[in-house]
């Protein structure tokens, strides 16, 4: 394996200036992240502001590539015994990090080391629950969180004779509207979606209060069995497969490729992360926003959605002085004005209640009504066992398996029942293997 070896070499080299830095009074804190473009600027600005606000600690952000690349760099660095202090890990990597108990230090512990007492109630419950152990200990610091919502094209709705001011709220309504868009000729396709796994399975189960996997979807134990071949999942995906055959649903790809189909006005309805709003605004199309659809006949639906995005993890084995610096930085990030600014500029969800309230009081949501949807979706109800999140030690692998089965289903090679049965069978085998059985 050449790459990890090279990575560890690179890590050793980047660590050199850090070691020499400790000769001065300033304690250096390294922060590995995966933010590009405008979001990278936010990272740089935040670090700079923190460094200027005090003189004891200095945060150095380092861009490490895509989310998986950053995670791999962190793992390689840990194996080479040169991990950074803080690493940004995407939502699906959460299970990987949690399984590595000896490698990470819970954020709750670190925040209380900073002198300030850690008060969990300050943070948004839906987000904190996702990044906590079953006993409630917060393990990582939520940095950028998003939630899937519904986008629709108002021009296409008008052309198809649909009400452009009232987006469909339930899945049956979405499918009906999508058919109408196609048959009326208002657009080439009715409905498309990014991330069939994250939106169609993980959030679908939380939002409809369905079980995704045993043991609270993997939050209570790593030895879990998938439950995604239950009847409501099969019914939902069979409908999508049928719509795909009629050309009403178009598949775009495994991650966010389908966004292009909505931006080019080929599809009228679209489910995607709230974080994708920036591109939709930039494209200049006449769009509207709505809640993620649900099934009205399912008990408890709509429940709440699960956060996507990424959180900040702290590696173990550092000195107390360094952890105090990390704590100071996290406390800086939690400040209301920083959080509300982050939320309004980047479209990410605010992490603290105070930031949410401050944004509300500033009248931001009245001017941008769609921006409140992802927050109310996540906070509307107290999370249940089905909706606190999905955590598997190998979620990236399980998602790949699901995607493969979905692709065969959408190509007409198998039914939804077969696709989900296969996904469960193959997924369970992969989970058993990953936990060492």
């Amino acid at each position: 394996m050449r790459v990890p070896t090279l990575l560890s070499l690179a890590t050793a080299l980047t660590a050199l200036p850090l070691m020499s830095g400790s000769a001065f009074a300033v304690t250096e804190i390294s922060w590995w992240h995966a933010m590009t473009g405008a979001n990278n600027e936010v990272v740089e600005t935040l670090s700079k502001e923190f460094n200027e606000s005090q003189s004891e600690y200095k945060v150095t952000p380092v861009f490490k590539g895509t989310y998986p690349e950053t995670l791999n760099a962190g793992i390689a660095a840990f194996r080479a015994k040169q991990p950074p202090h803080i690493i940004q890990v995407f939502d699906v990597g959460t299970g990987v990090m949690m399984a590595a108990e000896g490698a990470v230090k819970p954020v709750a512990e670190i925040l209380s080391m900073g002198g300030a007492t850690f008060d969990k109630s300050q943070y948004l419950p839906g987000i904190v629950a996702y990044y906590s152990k079953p006993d409630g200990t917060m393990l990582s610091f939520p940095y950028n969180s998003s939630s899937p919502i519904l986008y629709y094209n108002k021009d296409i709705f008008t052309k198809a004779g649909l009400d452009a001011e009232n987006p469909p709220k339930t899945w049956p309504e979405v499918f009906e509207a999508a058919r109408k868009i196609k048959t009326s000729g208002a657009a080439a396709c009715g409905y498309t979606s990014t991330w069939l796994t994250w939106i169609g399975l993980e959030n679908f189960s939380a939002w409809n209060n369905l079980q995704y996997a045993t043991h609270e979807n993997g939050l209570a134990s790593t030895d879990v069995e998938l439950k995604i071949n239950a009847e409501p999942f099969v019914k939902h995906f069979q409908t999508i497969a049928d719509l795909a055959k009629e050309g009403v649903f178009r598949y775009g790809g495994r991650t966010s490729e389908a966004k292009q189909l909505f931006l080019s006005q080929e599809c009228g309805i679209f489910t995607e992360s709230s974080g994708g709003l920036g591109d939709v605004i930039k494209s200049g199309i006449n769009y509207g926003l709505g809640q993620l659809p649900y099934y009205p006949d399912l008990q408890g639906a709509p429940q709440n959605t699960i956060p996507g995005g990424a959180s900040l993890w702290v590696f173990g084995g550092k000195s107390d002085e360094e952890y105090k610096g990390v704590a100071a930085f996290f406390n800086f990030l939690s400040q209301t004005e920083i959080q509300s600014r982050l939320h309004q500029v980047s479209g990410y969800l605010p992490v603290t209640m105070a930031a949410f309230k401050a944004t509300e009081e500033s009248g931001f949501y009245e001017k941008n009504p769609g921006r409140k949807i992802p927050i109310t979706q996540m906070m509307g109800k107290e999370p249940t066992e089905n909706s606190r999140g999905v955590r598997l030690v190998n979620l990236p692998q399980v998602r790949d398996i699901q995607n493969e089965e979905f692709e065969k289903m959408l190509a007409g090679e198998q039914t939804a029942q077969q696709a989900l049965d296969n996904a469960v069978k193959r997924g369970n085998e992969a989970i058993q293997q990953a936990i060492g059985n």
Partner: protein
Amino acid sequence: MSPRVTFPNKVLPYLLLAPQLAITLVFFYWPASQALYQSMLREDPFGLSTKFVWFQNFAKVLRDPNYLNSLNVTLIFAVATAVISMGVALVLAVMADRVVRGRGVYRTLLIWPYAVAPAIAGMLWLFMFNPTMGSFAYILRATGYNWDPLLNGNQAMVLLVSAAAWKQISYNFLFFVAGLQAIPKSLIEAAAIDGAGPTKRFWTIVFPLLAPTTFFLLVINTVYAFFDTFGIVHAVTGGGPGKATETLVYKVYSDGFVNLILGDSAAQSVILMVIVIALTAVQFRYVERRVHYG
């Protein structure tokens, strides 16, 4: 001239060899031995719990139907890529050999694509044929053809082979042109006087005499299709749809760096290493023979 050049100093030759040996040690033997060691371990991504399992990972990989599938995919991909890129290159080389005016311009233009990196070649084809944004894909769909490589595995394979073969045509072209120039004109002229047409001359004289070049290119193209096409697969299909385009090299990457199963991934890379060594051995034997009889 003496057949053996000897150094008067006993140390000097080792000193001269040292830099190359050091590079080989650091960048090949060390990582390769690490891979070999890793392939016999089963551990979590962070290396917190490690178990030595001897050859269990190899047994598991070789029994895995997905691995056999990806072996199959790789063979289809390699054969199709080699045949298409060599076939097209041979036709172009024979044609370019006949052109009298502007020969240099044709050749230069035909060689250009070789300078394109695999990942960029992949992106180019993706931009043309991706069903969500490609212009050619749009035209294909407008004619009523259901072009959807995102869901249709065969179409995805066609797209991959086209991108990989297109990139390799220039390289093959270059060698075929050189091979054609090495064929004595007198042989072809003699055949022409005997009344053999261009097609007959090609199949009875040119093609057999090109055999050494063709064989050399076959090895090179196979190695290329096996190992140098990761960038294209990564950019164009990511191994999908399903597992329809997951080649051996891509599987090493996805098992090791996406799924974080390091032992399996290392075992697969050791198997690949054995394949490369075998292919290289074939190539060396062949090159040596050519030196003897050429």
